[in-house]
């Protein structure tokens, strides 16, 4: 008989699980952490390789040579930008038309729910300009997009100029099988969102935009350029997109292959690759790169203009030029050649990129960890929750909960409902009550929103005390066990679903939430445990992540600066949700926080 179908063996197995429950849970937790940290160790990773047959290993000879012309164009663009005090729409339209593209513009406007202090904007109005290079012989069924943002000040002038120079070079070639769209968007992510919504005839974020006059077919891939200096020392690849979505790994492989061919230094997370994986520094370097990727993916915002394309199943990546203090500099012609090579390879595609991985972690540009290797780390943490469900103390509460008249059910239902109502309040009230808050307190709107959110969060901590007194009778033993059972299953389902969509977010939440929730009972020393619970609550997790992130990018901050950053992270999270549909803030407010509140309720059951 099999292990699970033999009743004797099953009894022995369950006996083992119940006897050794706590040690197994501790072992699983440590194993999960160790597994995760071990992912960055090079022998456990795989070398990246081109999976798509159509993009092949054959390189083409790049012949782009107008780097210098691009740089003079950058100065012209800068002058016109200053003159127009925004985006020089007429100049861009004329420049693209003179290069033989079909040029169209799109105007859009959006009122932010509250002013964005980081970028100093509240009522955003802008224009996107895009030119379509029609493939000379192909039908207009597929397209590629190259985009450069029009940013205020001195940034990204060279990106737009290189875009125009590439457009001129590409127009003279006859081997294009897809249309190429050159997009210059204003107000970076908001402009890109407006363009994408107009292109795909959707309206998911409440943006107002004029419909697009010209269209090119289904977009197969997109590249976003950010270049702010005439010479660069390295090119950084940004992959993380909205909600932690990543483009197909083949795009990263393509970039890396061309960087190697042209001898350009390429980095990911701003870090260069090291060859000494067997030393401690080498391992730490890889682990730092991977942790940066995990943190960036977990916060769910789009770290480049490419991030919004991913939602439409368009593989996109951002290429950022970095000018640091290095001896060897790369000029604009080489960057143009790199982009020409990449676009020519993307031109060979017959179908969308799908051969390589969509879920991966990159400890460096040439090594990757696929979902099959990193998911067990989360699995080990999630199994702790399920082991605790099978704990004998909780088992015979099933019989209790089946009786409808038992006081246990009502006592359980109330905390659940109240926690979720608090979550709803945390989600809705900060934005809606900002005017009232501004009237009564001397704060700006952004601060009002953030502080309201924190206030509601803290107020939720006090709730269980009060509801317990309102309800008749004290909580019974069965009561808190049923609540813990429900809450553990709820948390397991939540974390599992989150980890499937955004592994980093799920893993980080699991690391902080699983130990306390698995071991919580009302019989613990309340004060100590309350402090520990608050310190491991979702809000503090965000705070720790902010500090760790700053450490990893080698810009450590003091406590007060960290606190300000934390407040701005919360406001950015709420803004991202309102503007682009990021799901991190609603997830935390509507699901994770109520779940945590339920455990808080258990702690104060008596």
């Amino acid at each position, binding site marked *: 008989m099999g292990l699970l179908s033999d009743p004797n063996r099953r009894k022995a197995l369950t006996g083992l699980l119940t006897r050794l429950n706590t040690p197994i849970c501790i072992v699983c937790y440590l194993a999960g952490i160790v597994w995760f940290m071990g992912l960055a160790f090079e022998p456990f990773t795989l070398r990246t390789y081109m999976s798509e*047959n*159509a993009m*092949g290993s054959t390189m*083409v*000879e790049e012949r782009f040579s107008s780097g210098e012309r691009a740089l003079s164009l950058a100065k012209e663009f800068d002058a016109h930008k200053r003159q127009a005090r925004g985006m020089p729409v007429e100049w861009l339209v004329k420049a693209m038309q003179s290069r033989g593209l079909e040029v169209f513009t799109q105007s859009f406007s959006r009122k932010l729910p509250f002013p964005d202090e980081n970028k100093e904007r509240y009522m955003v109005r802008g224009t996107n300009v895009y030119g379509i290079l029609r493939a000379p012989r192909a039908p207009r069924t597929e397209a590629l997009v190259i985009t450069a943002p029009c940013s205020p000040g001195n940034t990204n002038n060279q990106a737009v100029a290189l875009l125009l120079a590439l457009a001129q070079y590409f127009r003279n070639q006859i*081997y294009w*099988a897809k249309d190429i769209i050159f997009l210059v968007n204003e107000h970076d992510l908001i402009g890109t969102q407006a363009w994408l919504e107009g292109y795909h005839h959707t309206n998911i974020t409440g943006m107002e935009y004029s419909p697009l006059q010209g269209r090119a077919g289904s977009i197969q891939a997109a590249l976003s350029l950010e270049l702010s200096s005439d010479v660069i020392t390295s090119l950084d690849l940004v992959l993380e997109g909205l909600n932690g979505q990543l483009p197909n790994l083949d795009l990263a492989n393509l970039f890396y292959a061309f960087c190697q061919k042209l001898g350009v230094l390429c980095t990911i997370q701003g870090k260069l690759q090291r060859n000494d994986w067997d030393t401690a520094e080498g391992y730490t370097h890889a682990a730092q790169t991977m942790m940066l990727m995990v943190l960036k993916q977990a916060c769910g915002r789009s770290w480049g203009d490419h991030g919004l394309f991913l939602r439409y199943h368009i593989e996109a990546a951002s290429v950022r030029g970095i000018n640091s203090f290095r001896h060897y500099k790369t000029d604009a012609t080489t960057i143009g050649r790199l982009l020409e090579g990449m676009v*020519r390879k993307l031109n060979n595609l*017959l179908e969308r990129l799908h051969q390589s991985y969509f879920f991966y972690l990159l400890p460096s540009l040439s090594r990757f960890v696929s979902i099959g290797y990193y998911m067990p780390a989360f699995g080990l943490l999630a199994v702790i929750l399920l082991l605790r469900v099978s704990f004998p103390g909780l088992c015979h509460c099933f019989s209790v909960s089946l009786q409808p008249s038992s006081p246990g059910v009502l006592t359980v239902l109330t905390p659940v409902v109240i926690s979720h109502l608090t979550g709803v309040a945390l989600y809705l009230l900060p934005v809606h009550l900002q005017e009232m808050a501004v009237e009564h307190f001397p704060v700006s709107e952004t601060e009002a929103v953030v502080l309201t959110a924190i206030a509601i969060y803290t107020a939720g901590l006090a709730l269980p005390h009060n509801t317990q007194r309102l309800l008749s009778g004290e909580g019974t033993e069965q009561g808190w066990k049923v609540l813990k059972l429900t809450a553990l299953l709820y948390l397991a389902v939540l974390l599992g679903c989150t980890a499937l969509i955004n592994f980093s977010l799920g893993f980080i939440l699991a690391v902080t939430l699983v130990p306390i929730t698995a071991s919580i009972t009302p019989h613990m020393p309340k004060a100590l445990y309350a402090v520990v619970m608050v310190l491991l609550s979702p809000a503090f997790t965000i705070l720790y992540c902010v500090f760790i992130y700053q450490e990893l990018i080698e810009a450590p901050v003091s406590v007060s600066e960290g606190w300000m950053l934390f407040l701005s992270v919360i406001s950015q999270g709420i803004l991202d949700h309102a503007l682009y549909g990021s799901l991190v803030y609603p997830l935390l407010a509507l699901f994770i926080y109520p779940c945590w509140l339920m455990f808080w309720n258990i702690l104060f059951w008596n």
Partner: protein
Amino acid sequence: MNYCNLITIFAFINLLVSIPHGYSNYVETKAGQFFSSGHTNNWAVLVCTSRFWFNYRHVANTLSVYRSVKRLGIPDSHIVLMLADDMACNYRNPKPATVFSHKNMELNVYGDDVEVDYRGYEVTVENFLRVLTGRLPPSTPRSKRLLSDDRSNILIYLTGHGGNGFLKFQDSEEISNMELADAFEQMWQKRRYNELLFIIDTCQGASMYERFYSPNLMALASSQVGEDSLSHQPDLGIGVHLMDKYTFYLLEFLEEVHPASQANMNDLFKVCPQSQCVSTPGHRTDLFQRDPGSVLITDFFGSVRKVEITKDTINLTSPVEPPIKRSGSSDIQIESLTYVDQLPVAEIIHQQDCLEANVTRCRRKQQRTRKLNCQVVEKQTA
């Protein structure tokens, strides 16, 4: 002294006498060789089974064999060319209307007079087998048929992506080695070939000829089972690999062959050794009845008409003996039987010889014979 002189003179006279005798022997051997291979016409079936831009090299492979075969004399009417995709007019081709086989665009194998019989999605396993076995619907045009007979030597060349025991057609179906062997057996039973040369340039190509069991088949493959056939050189202007190694060296070998060359199959087996090709080419000759050393390349790759101009008379023993005249009955005239003229030229040329009175009858008879002649002529070239 005189004795020595006598011997020398005797030897010299002997030599003089034997030279014409030897020459006529030589001529007789050559004459004997005229009919040694047993074939009277040549056909070629050239198939490229892969589509998509990155499989440019398979189309270039097939077109380069097509070019050699045409150069050595097989006309388009005797070549069935199947190309699964159009590389010359692909949007990604920076040099439209060309397919190059050598880098730096040295040799354009597409040319001006390529005649593709099966193109694009028509290249399927079913169509390929129907071409081989001749089971085509009656509406199929002649250019798409393999109209071979029992005196045809057929060259079959396949290229594409293959594996152990199969060849992939167009990314959606496969032909197995057993199907191919059965198709060749059908051809043998229907007497559709005299001898057949099968060349395949794919990965693990040798697995495709393992299962042949019909006689008079010779097979060559570019790699053994478990080996990959590699591509030769990329062209940086076009951005793809242009040819496969085996066919590249095969093309180089065939460029040296001309219609009168005496290169034989043993030279073909030596094309592309492992040092050049990385994979080990293989061949199979056990089903072939002649010795490969005596089989000329042009027996399969060219359409060499057995014509040699000579100014001497050759005495051939007459196969037809006149009937023996019996002593008794001299009135019974046994006329010797001869074959009817295939094309009664005499009647057509000398139509003026008809008498005035029999003009109409004569003309009618000529019309009838002319109609009959047309049908006879058609049957001949079929």
